[in-house]
Structure formats: structure tokens, C-alpha cells
């Protein structure tokens, strides 16, 4: 898959110019209207004191950015997003690779496994959240009943600030592991059988040896792609926060995107929300560029 090969400009007389422009125009118009102009506005507003509803706005330079640096709740929100991502991305990667390797070596039930592990990726998260909040209820949830039966302490999964974010992260892994499994399966399928045959001659026919010396180096590009993709997805976590904790208890599960949502659409603090959005944009933009680069360079399906 070569994604980024630069657009070749065909010097072909038969290629018609003005019509081409007409064809591209709706897209250009909309891309500018939906992406370029709004982003310019967001950056502009972040330099003002505009709040939703004001009739005018004053230029305040970087004041909002300074406010962000001195705002413990926003810094915490950023940290929560990072924390969530640091748990979800590596775990999803490792588990996905592990599961994919197990499935890859098996022919029976392969299809069945693929379907099962992929279910959470397609399922409407809010619907699943309704189940999770029941399963994880601190006092009457079945998971806690099982814990008690096993002689363990109950855990207020979603209402104890020490556990809430970890719980959401675990749900995040549950949700995304199928995605990384499928990507790894595709990556594994691309490894030529000869390589394993050759390895077998050298005595590396299975187990950890084969994995560490043969499979892993070959799967690294896929792993990198999965890592970045999962990082981007994890960093944008919103649904589970909105549906399960609303950022609580306290602000212990407020992530950056949820904070933006609150500032922009609950409190109408538009300029501050714009400032946080610029930060969010910068982070995601960087990661996605990196993803495109990696996809272009290394991954061949």
C-alpha cells in the first residue's frame, strides 16, 4: 500500500483542464469551508476573549495559553488523556499481537475468533456502556459480587477516583483489541511462508524463538502502524467518559476532549475552548502525519 506517492502531473493533451476544475470544485469548496476556515477561526478565537454570545471580542494575545498553563483542571485533563493513552495503546498492541499470533497458527475457528474479537469495534459504544455501568456498579454490579464471592474487596470501579480512569482504560482496551488483532492478522498473513520454512531448518520452528527472531522483526512496521493508530484513537476518547462517568467522580476522568466539550458547549467559554482545541489539534495532527508517513513507508498489505 503506497499511500503518499506524490500526484503525478500527467502531461497529456487529452486530459481536459477546465472540466477537471469543475469536478474538484465542490470538494475544494467544502474542504475549505469545513476544515480550513474553521481552523483559522479556532486559532484566531484562541487569541481573543470571545465568549459564545458576545457581540464583539478583544485581542488578548497568548493570555488564554498562559491561563491554560496555570489551570490545574485543564492540565489534569491533558494528563488524563495521556494516562489513558499510555495504558490503552501499549496494552492493545501487545494483546492484539498475542491474539493474532494465536489465531494465525490455527485454522479451525479462525473465522469465529475474528468475529468475536472484532465485535466491540463495531458495537455502538453507548449501548455497551449501558451494560458496563451495570456490570461495574460498585455495590450491586455482578463483577463486584464475584469479587466478594472470591473473598476480595469490592471496588467502586466507576465512582472511586482512584479506579475510575483505570476502569475506563480497561474498557478502552476491550473496545480496541479487536482492531489491533485484525491489523496484525493482515500483517502476519503477508509474511511469506518460505521465511518460516527457512527458519525451521535452523531449528526455529516454533514458540518464542520463532517469534522473536522471525515474526517480530517482520511485523514491526505493522506494530508501529497499530501503535500510532491506537494512540490517535485513544487520545480522542470521549464516548466512554460521556456515557459512563461524565468526567467524574470529581474531575478524575475528564479527558482533554471532554474538557473541550464542557468549556465549549456547556460553559460557553469559547475562546478558552478554542485554545484547548488548538492544543488538541496540534497533538492529533502530529500523530496522524506520522501515521501517514509510517503507512507510506513500511506497511504493505
Amino acid at each position, binding site marked *: 500500500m503506497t499511500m503518499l506517492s506524490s*500526484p503525478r502531473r500527467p502531461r497529456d493533451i487529452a486530459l481536459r483542464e477546465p472540466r477537471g476544475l469543475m469536478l474538484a470544485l465542490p470538494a475544494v469548496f467544502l474542504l475549505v469551508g469545513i476544515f480550513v476556515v474553521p481552523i483559522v477561526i479556532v486559532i484566531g478565537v484562541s487569541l481573543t476573549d470571545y465568549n459564545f454570545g458576545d457581540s464583539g471580542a478583544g485581542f488578548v494575545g497568548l493570555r488564554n495559553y498562559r491561563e491554560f498553563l496555570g489551570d490545574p483542571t485543564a492540565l489534569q485533563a491533558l494528563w488524563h488523556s495521556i494516562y489513558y493513552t499510555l495504558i490503552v495503546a501499549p496494552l492493545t498492541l501487545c494483546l492484539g499481537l498475542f491474539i493474532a499470533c494465536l489465531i494465525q497458527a490455527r485454522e479451525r475457528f479462525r473465522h469465529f475468533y475474528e468475529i468475536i474479537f472484532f465485535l466491540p469495534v*463495531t458495537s455502538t459504544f453507548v*449501548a455497551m456502556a449501558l451494560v458496563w455501568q451495570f456490570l461495574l456498579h460498585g455495590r450491586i454490579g455482578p463483577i463486584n459480587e464475584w469479587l466478594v464471592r472470591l473473598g476480595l474487596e469490592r471496588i467502586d470501579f466507576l465512582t472511586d477516583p482512584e479506579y475510575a480512569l483505570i476502569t475506563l482504560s480497561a474498557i478502552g482496551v476491550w473496545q480496541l483489541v479487536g482492531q489491533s488483532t485484525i491489523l496484525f492478522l493482515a500483517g502476519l498473513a503477508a509474511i511469506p511462508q518460505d521465511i518460516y520454512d527457512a527458519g525451521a531448518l535452523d531449528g526455529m520452528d516454533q514458540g518464542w524463538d520463532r517469534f522473536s527472531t522471525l515474526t517480530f522483526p517482520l511485523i514491526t512496521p505493522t506494530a508501529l502502524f497499530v501503535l500510532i493508530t491506537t494512540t490517535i484513537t485513544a487520545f480522542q476518547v470521549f464516548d466512554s467518559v460521556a456515557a459512563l462517568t461524565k468526567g467524574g467522580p470529581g474531575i478524575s476522568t475528564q479527558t482533554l476532549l471532554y474538557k473541550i466539550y464542557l468549556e465549549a458547549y456547556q460553559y460557553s467559554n469559547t475562546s478558552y475552548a478554542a485554545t484547548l482545541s488548538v492544543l488538541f489539534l496540534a497533538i492529533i495532527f502530529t500523530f496522524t502525519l506520522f501515521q501517514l508517513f509510517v503507512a507510506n513507508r513500511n506497511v504493505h498489505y
Partner: protein
Amino acid sequence: MAIASAPTTRTGNHRSAAIASHATLWILAGFIVVPYVWMALTAGRMPDEIFTRPFGLPAFSNYLANVQLAFGTAPLARFMFNGFAVTALILGFQIAIAIPCAYALTKCRLPFSGLLFGLVLAALCVPIQVPMLPIYIGLASIGALNTYFSLIVPFVASPFAIFLFRQQIQSYPTDIVRAARLDGFSEFEIITRLIVPSLRPSIAAFAVFSITTHWNDLYWPMISISDINMATPPLGLLYFRDGDIGANYGALMMAAIMAIIPMMLVYFAAQRQFVRGMAVTGFR
């Protein structure tokens, strides 16, 4: 696809390895499936059984009662209709806008085509939640919130669609396009009669990706919709949970099942395209 196990004499060893890995997979799959099983069981419980007998198999009649409750108490059918309408409209616009653009980028001599492609790539890197802020303000100021229009407008131009189709059209032989032009085909005819048919697999992959993304989206409906009748399934479920029926877990679970079934069907019907779309986008 699966790699045949390497030839070896240690067959016994292999068999136990196979059993071990199947066992591991079954355990892991068990974790994945727990919420679904719980959902299916609870959807058949009456309110008074939920806590008193949470484990046994529910009676079939309870399922029917809860289906009735789910559709009767909240406008669940309306949510689902909105979901279908919105995903279909978004997909329609995305394809109708992206294909001509992708075609122009590859098969026409376009001024600033490098710049345009750069724009597409840049837009691909933008998390859509950022431009939503001004779009929300714009929609609010023209009084267009709470409409289908507001639900679809941030998504009508998909840089990903342009990107994906451009890649595909690139490999479409330019000679055929040239010949078609000499035969008097208009550009529109070339697109509809030659390009679109050749793009079918890509369109399918993109469609599956787009439909699931927008059916499941919560962020934008939560912002742009405050009228229950305009809610899409995820937002509707939240209302449903907090509302009247919130205490009736059985009916709530039934509603949740209704919301995930369409996407499961899409997935079963188009698994291959699904995987392909995901391999390209990373599904975000």
C-alpha cells in the same frame, strides 16, 4: 491464509500446543463476550428479577414484553430512523463529492493539484472535533441546529474518501479514459460509467467504515441536537437511560441490542471490506 504448521516430527507436542492456544483464545474471547452475554440475559428480565435472580435463563415472553416497552416508551423507532437517514445522507454526499474530486486529481490536468492534494492530506490529519466548534456557532447563528442538515454537515466532505478513491483511480488505465473522451464521453459519463464500477470494492470498504462511524458517533449529536426527535441511536439511548425507563434495565438492554444490531449486520455482510477499510484508516 493460515500458515500450515511447519513440518515436524513432534506432532504430539504440536497437538498440545494447539489445545493450549485454543484454550487461551477461548478465555480471552470469554472476556470480550461477557457484556454481550449479560446484555442478552438482562434484556429478558422483568424489573423485579434483575437483582433477585440475575443468572438463570429468562423466559421468552419477557423478551417480547421488553421489546414492546423499548419501542413503546421511548421513540426508539424514531432514533433508528434518524440513524439510517443520517448515515445514508452522509455516505451519499461523501461519495458524490469525493469521487469527482479524486478523479480530477488523477485523470485531469488540474491547476494547483499539488496544493489540493496537500489540502486533502492536511484535512486527513485534523480531528473533526476542532472545526466543529465554529461550525456549531455558525449553525446556531442561522438557526439550523436540531436538523438533519446540522447532523450531516461537518461530515459531507471526507478527506479520507478522496484519499482512498484517488489511490484506486490512479491505477485505472489512463488510456481507457483517453479513449472514452475521444469517443465523446463527457467527464460525468466517464465517472459514472467507467470509474464508479471500477471503484466498487473501495466504495464498499469506505461505506462500511463511514456507516459504522456515523451510526456510532456521539460527540456531534450531543452538541448539535437538543430535540429528542432528532436524536440518533447513541444519543437516544442516553436519553432513554436517564429517562423513565432508566430503572428498568431489561427494557434498556433491549434498546441497546436494537442499537447494535444494524452495525453487526453490516459487519457480517461486509466483513472483508470492513477489515480492508480499517487497515487503511486505522478506523478513527
